[in-house]
């Protein structure tokens, strides 16, 4: 383990590409990068998987975006300037002039209206995953071809973050008029790269869009995203068959690649806006009893687990419902006051046994549904071991991704290893996962809790940051008392690439900074 730690330290040192960043970007070259999983659709609006986002991001633009290298600051992408009315009920955006789609047509405010109308009120047969983020929008108006105005029904403190969402790819109004589902099967935007081809199971290719609105960008002639399994990725990067992978590796995979690439390895590490959760089915006995759920949460040694599991997997630090270390997060001292986060595990487990006894569940057995890949399996093994220590026996049911979704959505589980990721730390984005099931389809604990919903709504309309943070703390306290779904550990993001890849920005989420407009290949 000592050798591993030293290697990891060396890898982190390699992650300081200060000298390279002062170099002048070089034009040309094709970036080969690896990606796991096939895209189920090409439509940004209809999905939440990185398998779509990382492939289509180079082809599209959004109204606003997170500033590269300065997360979570928001800057314009298609918007050249913008104003927010003093009552926060009107957002006015001026668009950049002469932005072209890949088919040569010029982007106007009509394209923005068509795009946002599709998200807010999807036509029949169109799936909109981000509809709930825009429920407070009253109308989208286009006073002239370069201006788009959003009128709000009520204040939403998350609106600017929502406008910067990478999922709101701007589509051509003309194409949507011909076929509202055009983006599900075609890729045509205003991004830095034109779509060339997608060969399922093999690769996705893009080439430079010469009329891209950021003059001089992109630097690359094109890119080729090669589809491969996670294990193949490590070997491909170590063997220099690909130059990058943008989602993340485990510490051991990082060490293997660094060993193979030597000084050509570039490692960038960050906390990750992705966390592992244990979710209980509150519609099934005995998980309808908060004492049972709370006991199962109390049994888990998050601090001890973090210290060890972070050495062998992508799992990292304990945290609440918002990313630890972010501006919205509780401090470790505050966390220790939550049920299941206290450091005295003997006391936690004694309390857990007492709760189980009180609930008449001293010999509880259950099935823990899980995905069959790392680090889900690691998390499952850990949780089962923790539950054994309070006398709870769990059967580990590992399933494929499709079954994992199907079982959780149909409620055919008792407890499962869940996960959640978002594109930003904004509380509305992340607390949404824990609201009532009738308001949030991703709240698969299937509980209804109006107290949580009221706290969610209140924080969403609170512009004052300090007050909003206090509301987030109250939301967390309520959730940990009820324990419908409880966070296990947050992930650590470890991106390893060949040092010749320059201009890419690391962030706590693998959903942003993927348009590759600033990426270039150094001569080696």
């Amino acid at each position, binding site marked *: 383990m000592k050798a591993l730690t030293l290697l990891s330290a060396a890898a982190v040192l390699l992650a300081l590409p200060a000298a390279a960043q002062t170099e002048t970007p070089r034009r040309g070259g094709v970036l080969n990068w690896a990606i796991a999983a096939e895209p189920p659709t090409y439509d940004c609006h209809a999905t939440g998987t990185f398998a779509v986002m990382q492939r289509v991001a180079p082809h599209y633009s959004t109204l606003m975006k997170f500033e590269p290298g300065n997360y979570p600051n928001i800057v314009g992408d298609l918007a050249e300037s913008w104003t927010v009315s003093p009552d926060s009920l009107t957002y006015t955006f001026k668009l950049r002039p002469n932005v072209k789609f890949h088919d040569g047509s010029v982007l106007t405010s009509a394209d923005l209206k068509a795009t946002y109308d599709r998200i807010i009120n999807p036509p029949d047969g169109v799936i909109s995953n981000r509809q709930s983020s825009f429920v407070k929008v009253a109308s989208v108006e286009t006073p002239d071809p370069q201006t788009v105005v959003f009128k709000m029904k009520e204040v939403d403190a998350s609106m600017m973050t929502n406008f910067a969402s990478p999922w709101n790819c701007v589509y051509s109004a003309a194409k949507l008029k011909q076929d509202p589902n055009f983006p599900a099967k075609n890729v045509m935007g205003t991004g830095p790269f034109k779509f060339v081809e997608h060969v399922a199971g093999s690769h996705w290719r893009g080439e430079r869009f010469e009329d891209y609105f950021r003059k001089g960008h992109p630097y690359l002639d094109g890119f080729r995203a090669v589809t491969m399994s996670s294990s193949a990725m490590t070997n491909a990067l170590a063997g220099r068959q690909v130059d990058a992978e943008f989602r993340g590796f485990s510490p051991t995979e990082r060490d293997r690649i660094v060993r193979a690439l030597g000084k050509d390895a570039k490692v960038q590490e960050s906390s990750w806006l992705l966390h592992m959760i244990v979710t209980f089915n509150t519609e099934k006995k005995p998980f309808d009893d908060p004492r049972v759920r709370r006991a199962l949460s109390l049994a888990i040694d998050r601090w001890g687990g973090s210290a*060890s599991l972070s050495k062998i997997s992508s799992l990292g630090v304990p945290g609440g419902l918002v990313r630890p270390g972010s501006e919205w997060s509780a401090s470790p001292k505050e966390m220790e006051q939550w049920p299941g986060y206290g450091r005295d595990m003997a006391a936690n487990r004694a309390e857990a046994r007492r709760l189980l006894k009180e609930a008449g569940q001293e010999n509880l057995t259950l099935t823990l549904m899980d995905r069959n890949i790392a680090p889900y399996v690691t998390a499952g093994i850990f949780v089962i071991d923790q539950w054994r220590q309070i006398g709870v026996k769990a059967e580990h*049911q590992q399933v494929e991704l499709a079954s994992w979704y199907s079982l959780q959505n149909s409620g055919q589980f008792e407890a499962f290893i869940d996960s959640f990721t978002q594109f930003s730390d904004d509380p509305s984005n992340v607390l949404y996962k824990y609201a009532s099931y009738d308001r949030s389809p991703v709240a698969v604990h299937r509980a209804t809790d109006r107290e949580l919903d009221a706290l969610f709504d209140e924080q969403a309309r609170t512009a004052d940051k300090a007050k909003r943070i206090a509301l987030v703390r109250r939301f967390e306290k309520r959730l940990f008392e009820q324990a419908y779904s409880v966070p296990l550990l947050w992930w650590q993001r470890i991106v390893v690439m060949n040092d010749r890849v320059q201009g890419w920005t690391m962030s706590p989420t693998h959903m942003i900074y993927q348009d590759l407009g600033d990426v270039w290949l150094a001569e080696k």
Partner: protein
Amino acid sequence: MTAIDQNAGAPTVARRRQPNPVLAFIRFQPLGAAGLLVILIMAAAAIFADVIAPYDPEAIDFMAMLTAPSWEHPFGTDAFGRDIMTRIIYGARTALTIGFVSSFVGCSLGAIIGVSSAYFGGRVDLTIQRFIDILLSYPIIVLALVVVAVVGRQPIAGIDINLILAIAIPIIPRVARVVRSAALAIRAMPYVDAARAGGYSDAHIIFRHLLPNVLAPYLIMLTAYVAQAILLEASLSFLGLGVSEPKPAWGLMLSGDSSNFYQEAPWMIIFPGVAISLTVFAFNLFGDSLRDWLDPKFKT
């Protein structure tokens, strides 16, 4: 000294002492006996795992993560600090249970189908054999993968019934084909004709007269397919389709974290690999020897 024959004048009957069959097997089939010894040791480990294993096979010990072999952990520990020797001992229980049950189910159904096919003959035989041809056209691991993917998992009392089925189904056509050829010869025997003339039912003739007479090839295949079944279980578990973590299973111990840590902790793959190889080798040795022992042609 002259021996006096007490029975002088009476007809002489050669009375050779029958040798102890176990000792005779050890003497004439030493490799098979060695295989049997390994099997017995494995079986004892599986049965008495709770007594002989030094640790709990599923207990995580983060203080002992990736510990090299030592007196405390003779086979080292894995990425969760679990004792590998303990997991191999408990893994014997998984391997032998699934191996024996799968082989027994597969061989028994295969024997019944093979004997029935031979006994009825004609269109029944033709139909069954063509169906068996189809099943035989799939490699054993591919057929098992298809079955496990279609039927999913059904753990009952810690044993995945569907996994046993997935391993047993590819065994059925292979055994049926061999047993059919043996049963074809038996079907032509006069005592079968006599039973038929006596008005016995088909089921009676199959179960009372045919099946007992194919016992020798059945036993040989039962032993041989235990090895195949153990290997299949290990392969399916390695591919993530067999036994689930944290249950100890040899194939499973070779997958997952082992593939990440095999360079830093080679003991994670060496010892489960040795356990699989040794057990399969032992069953194959024993199966081959049993075949030689039971086959009159080999005896001569």
